[in-house]
């Protein structure tokens, strides 16, 4: 029964996901037409405006076809990961993206790990010492973290750890895993400041809620060891809210990646998006936006599924309603 209910739930979410993706791709395609000015001029960029270039462009973007057919042709190409060519560099958008994807992924995963380790660790420490100096210190730091945007954190870290004390490099991406790790530590930290604060706040609240539960008191009363109570009884329940906020964490990381890559002059997807926006390079803009959108939509679906797997109460609730 639960297995079937789960399957129905996932299927329903997949349908929603498909509809969402179609809607997002439609909006993304329409960006070409929302943009004020002559579409051909925009797509030509700095290239000369001659009959031949206009003809080639019309063919490439199917500009002589009706709007919906243009969308259909564009979407078919987009599914095959072809988004046309960059106006600025006249390279294919796909190659622009794949060249920069590894760096952004590295940065994102690095700071995701930092977020989870520090966020949950500090959250638990703060909840266990409720009211003491450690807790108050952490709570204050959380307030600071939540109010510090990634680009301010980036500049502050850059100044302290790359200019005053030269522990980390001020620019560059490095080569080889450990060198890259060293180069990307400051960017990853800057990126994680807000998300760590967010995770700490939610973990702390959830832990404090669980600490007062009867089953925890009973586990202590039975004489179970502190570590067993902490890891088996408390942490599993306290982690559930972290899954709930994973959507917010992801979108905060994506926003942060854009800011941090610009602040540290890193050639990743975030700085590609900003360059494309500054130079009105619409095909690149469309490609990056679509990629971000797919990541967000799929990750939200995954979070919902994980949520149901981890917390049996949700499954019961879903069935009874």
């Amino acid at each position, binding site marked *: 029964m639960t297995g079937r209910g789960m399957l129905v739930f996932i299927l329903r979410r997949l349908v929603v996901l498909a509809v*969402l993706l179609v809607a997002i791709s439609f909006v993304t395609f329409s*960006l070409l037409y*929302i*943009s*004020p000015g002559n579409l051909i001029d925009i797509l030509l960029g700095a290239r000369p405006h001659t009959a031949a270039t206009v003809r080639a462009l019309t063919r490439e973007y199917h500009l002589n076809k009706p709007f919906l057919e243009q969308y259909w042709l564009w979407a078919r190409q987009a599914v095959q990961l072809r988004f046309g060519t960059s106006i600025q560099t006249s390279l294919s958008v796909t190659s622009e993206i794949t060249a920069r994807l590894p760096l952004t992924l590295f940065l994102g995963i690095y700071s995701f790990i930092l977020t989870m380790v520090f966020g949950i660790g500090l959250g638990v420490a703060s909840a266990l010492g*409720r*009211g*003491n100096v450690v*807790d*108050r210190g952490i709570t204050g730091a959380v*307030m*600071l973290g*939540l*109010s*510090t*945007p*990634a*680009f*301010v954190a980036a*500049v*502050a870290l*850059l*100044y302290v750890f790359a*200019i005053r004390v030269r522990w980390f490099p001020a620019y560059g991406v490095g080569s080889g895993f450990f060198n890259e790790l060293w180069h990307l530590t400051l960017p990853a930290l800057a990126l994680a400041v807000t998300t760590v604060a967010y995770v700490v706040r939610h973990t702390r609240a959830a832990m404090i809620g669980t*600490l*007062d539960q*009867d089953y925890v*008191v009973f586990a*202590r009363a039975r004489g179970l060891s502190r570590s067993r109570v902490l890891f088996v009884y408390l942490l599993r329940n306290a982690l559930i809210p972290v899954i709930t906020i994973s*959507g*917010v964490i992801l*979108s*905060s990381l*994506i*926003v942060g990646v*854009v*800011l941090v890559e*610009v*602040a540290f002059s890193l050639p990743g997807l975030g700085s590609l*998006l*900003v360059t*494309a*926006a*500054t130079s*009105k*390079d*619409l095909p690149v*803009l469309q490609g990056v*936006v679509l990629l*971000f959108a797919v990541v*967000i939509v799929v990750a*939200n679906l995954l979070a919902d599924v994980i949520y149901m797997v981890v917390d049996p109460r949700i499954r019961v609730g879903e069935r009874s309603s």
Partner: protein
Amino acid sequence: MTASSALVLPEELAQPGRRARRRLRSPVIWLSFVIMAGVLVMAIFGALLAPQNPATQHLAIVTAPPSGAHWLGTDALGRDVFSRVIAGARTAFFGPLVIAAASFLLGNLLGLFAGYRGGLADSLIMRWVDFMWSLPALVILVVVAGTVGSSYWLAVAVLIVLTVPFDTRVIRGATLEQMPRPYVEAAKTLGVPRWKIMLFHVWPNVSPVAVANTCLVFAGSLVTLAGLEFLGLGLPPGTPDWGLMLSQNEALLFTNPLATIAPGVMIVLTAIAMNLIGDWLYEQLTSRGAVR
């Protein structure tokens, strides 16, 4: 107290932090109000308060360190950083103010409506809210700027649309909590019109949440707008603005670091002050509401 204390773990019986925090809170909140008042004054009077014209370039004293004449030194074009920080309060204050106000109005109406009506209207609104909520606001702003062109007030308008769901969700939750209360039932039985129940009976009870939330919205949109300026996709390059200063003066970290750090500190201070005021207001208003 007695029933619950039997279940409380020994180390939680004494809560030394609670009183200490309350003592600590008053100067902090006092300081937050002082900061916000200062930012407000700077935002209204702007360049009038500045010791020097924030746009005047002194090309002879480019990237000078702090001195008696230039308290925070000068930037790469020899402009007085201190004056630019003061003038920059305007874009940092009024955009978020408009966003917070508009989102307060729309979010409260939608949230009250969704929470009060329930049913299809509620689930449609909440689906929309959930969708909007998962969007990374700054990325949307970057895309809009890239497609339509950079504009501060356009960014403010887009941010209003992106922020309304946040208010809506919070108000809807608070409204749902009020719905089973007897006074709502009583008003319904007396035949009070629906909009009157929503606005004059339910809303006063959810208003603490609404007001506190608006402070959070202000702080959040201040940070997002500053991010957009930092990326150079909002205001024109010469404008004194904290986010813009941060990106333009980033190269000055080696020569006059204060030119970069000061606007950053201003962004963080203003955001923290607003967040703290929000928390404080919530506590004040709810504790009063409990007595009522």
